[in-house]
């Protein structure tokens, strides 16, 4: 075990960059949980859909990877809405385990549908942004990482603003806290759920386009990123946006700093360790107060 300063600094930089993306991936999950109290185990697979879409837009149509956001975001929005309508909506009131099983089923379906359609190839693109690096002292950060990082911050802020200050945001929060009461204030709760699910999924469209230039896509890509999203969401406090953002950064840092200082692949145990400790001792997450 060596603690060399350049390695640590590089780890911090890389951790922050990837942490930004983790945050963006997690925000949709936290939104959906916050509103419907549903843990979407198919979340990672939604991201996979976004990545495939972005990939084909780039390779088949030659669209700039960052311009694909204009397509991936609305498409994921509608994918989310579609899946919500046929499968989530009917079981909104069912016990949590049924919902977990249902979304697990959906994740199996999506994953293997991708396998049937696209084969198991691991696909990635080399864009014109690849290879542009910035050096800060000994630390290297790529342009694509920077764009993803700031893109994530922007998306988070935008979403936060919408939820906090607009009527739609208040509807979403009201429906989350008491659906019947919201209905009785003239809020169309089912529509609000639909919207929230759509927005939560659309976040993954943004994430996919930002991620593709320095990542890869395969049918199973959602497994790991989906799991990370859970960790981040718990860390940030389920349903808490800013928490998810901070949580994303923390997990990004944990993964990279853990790799810098821990032997073998034990750094992953660190990630789960944080997850478990938070669930046990601070289930309300890092930012929120404990509720009665």
């Amino acid at each position, binding site marked *: 075990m060596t603690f060399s300063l350049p390695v640590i600094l590089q780890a911090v930089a890389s951790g922050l960059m990837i942490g930004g993306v983790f945050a963006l991936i997690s925000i949709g999950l936290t939104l959906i*949980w916050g509103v419907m*109290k549903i*843990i979407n185990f198919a979340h990672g697979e939604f991201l996979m859909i976004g990545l495939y879409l972005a990939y084909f837009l780039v390779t088949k149509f030659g669209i700039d990877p960052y311009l694909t956001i204009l397509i991936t975001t609305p498409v994921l929005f509608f994918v989310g809405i579609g899946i919500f309508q046929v*499968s989530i909506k*009917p*079981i*909104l*009131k*069912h*016990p*949590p*385990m*049924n*919902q*977990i*099983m*249902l979304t*697990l*089923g*959906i*994740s*199996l*379906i999506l*994953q*293997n*549908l*991708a*396998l*049937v359609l696209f*084969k*198991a190839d691991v696909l990635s693109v080399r864009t014109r942004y690849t290879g542009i690096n910035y050096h800060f002292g000994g630390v290297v950060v790529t342009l694509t990482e920077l764009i993803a990082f700031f893109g994530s911050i922007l998306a988070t802020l935008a979403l936060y603003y919408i939820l906090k200050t607009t009527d739609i945001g208040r509807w979403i929060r009201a429906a989350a806290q008491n*659906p*019947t009461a919201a*209905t009785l204030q003239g809020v169309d*709760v*089912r529509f609000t759920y639909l919207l929230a699910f759509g927005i939560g999924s659309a976040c993954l469209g943004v994430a996919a386009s930002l991620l593709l230039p320095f990542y890869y896509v395969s*049918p199973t890509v959602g497994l790991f990123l989906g*799991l990370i999203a*859970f*960790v981040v969401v*718990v860390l940030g406090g*389920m349903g808490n946006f800013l928490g998810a953002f901070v949580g994303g950064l923390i997990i990004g840092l944990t993964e990279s700093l853990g790799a810098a200082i821990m032997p*073998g*692949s*034990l750094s*992953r*145990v660190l990630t*789960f*360790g944080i*997850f*478990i400790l938070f*669930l*046990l*001792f601070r*289930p309300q997450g890092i930012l929120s107060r404990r509720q009665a």
Partner: protein
Amino acid sequence: MKQMKQYREFLVPLVVFALAAFLPLFLKTYYMHIAILILIWAYLATSWNILGGYAGQHSLGHGLYMGIGAYASTYLALEFGLTPWVGIFVGMAFAAIAGWFVGYAAFRYGLKGAYFALVTIALTEAAVYVVSNWKAMGGAAGLEVKYLGTDPFMMQFDSKLPYFYIILFMTLLAVLTAQWLNRRRFGYRLIAVRENEEAAEAMGVNTLGTKINANVLSAVMTAAGGTFFAQYFTYVGPRVVFGEVVSVQILLFAIIGGLGTVWGPLVGAVILVPVAEIARAELGTQFQGAHLLLYGGVLVFTMLFMPNGIVGLAKSIRARFGKTPDDTMSVSASEGGAS
């Protein structure tokens, strides 16, 4: 007379399993293998059901206990030549300790529902990485039960028959345990905890203790299943016995069969295991992933159209024809939306 009545509830399981004991007369070897698979998953799901179905604490991390059982007996056999007949109890003891700690840690701090599910999934996933990095446990490559041909002392047989009877007996015990819980104080306390912890506590139920006990009982039973699994497949690996995938599979059968019912896990396994096997054999290589697609489809279908599982559905059909449900432990999904 009264004695008779008290034990009558055990009659049905005994008869069913006695009949099942004749199955080998009719089954070809490969079907014996399927029968054993069914029983393994039925056994594990029944064990899970005590915590998940009866006490309503949905553990997504039972792979942890299965792994402990599998690794303990296998390691002891390889390293010290200890017979798995003893190793199985060592594994159960370790699982009891793990189950107690997990139960205490989680329930002491009031974790429930989705949070409990997530913490257990994280624990079993973390176990995968710990074991993968643990050289004595074979690391990522896992441990292989040394092949000895037929050696009853080491729980190894070339024929399927002994395996079948061992797991049949284990499953019978598990079902009897579930049946026993159905009409006993501990069983009622499990349900009370599931239905309303605050009220249960106020009525003298030590909810923390009850949940921890349920977790320990469930863990211990699951670990025994793990040992059998290791002996039957003669191999244990971190991902094979620990981790999310196995854990989900364990509870799948209980959920699809019917949560919190005596027969649900068994019914779930009897129906689903062959479907999965056939799907893999028939579709597996025509399109990659097609059989798993089917699997996901079955899951989604069940959740959408039979939220209380197969046994739950059967019961509500029976209820419609005027019979009152006698299996009081079932959970029904609440109905209707807000608007």
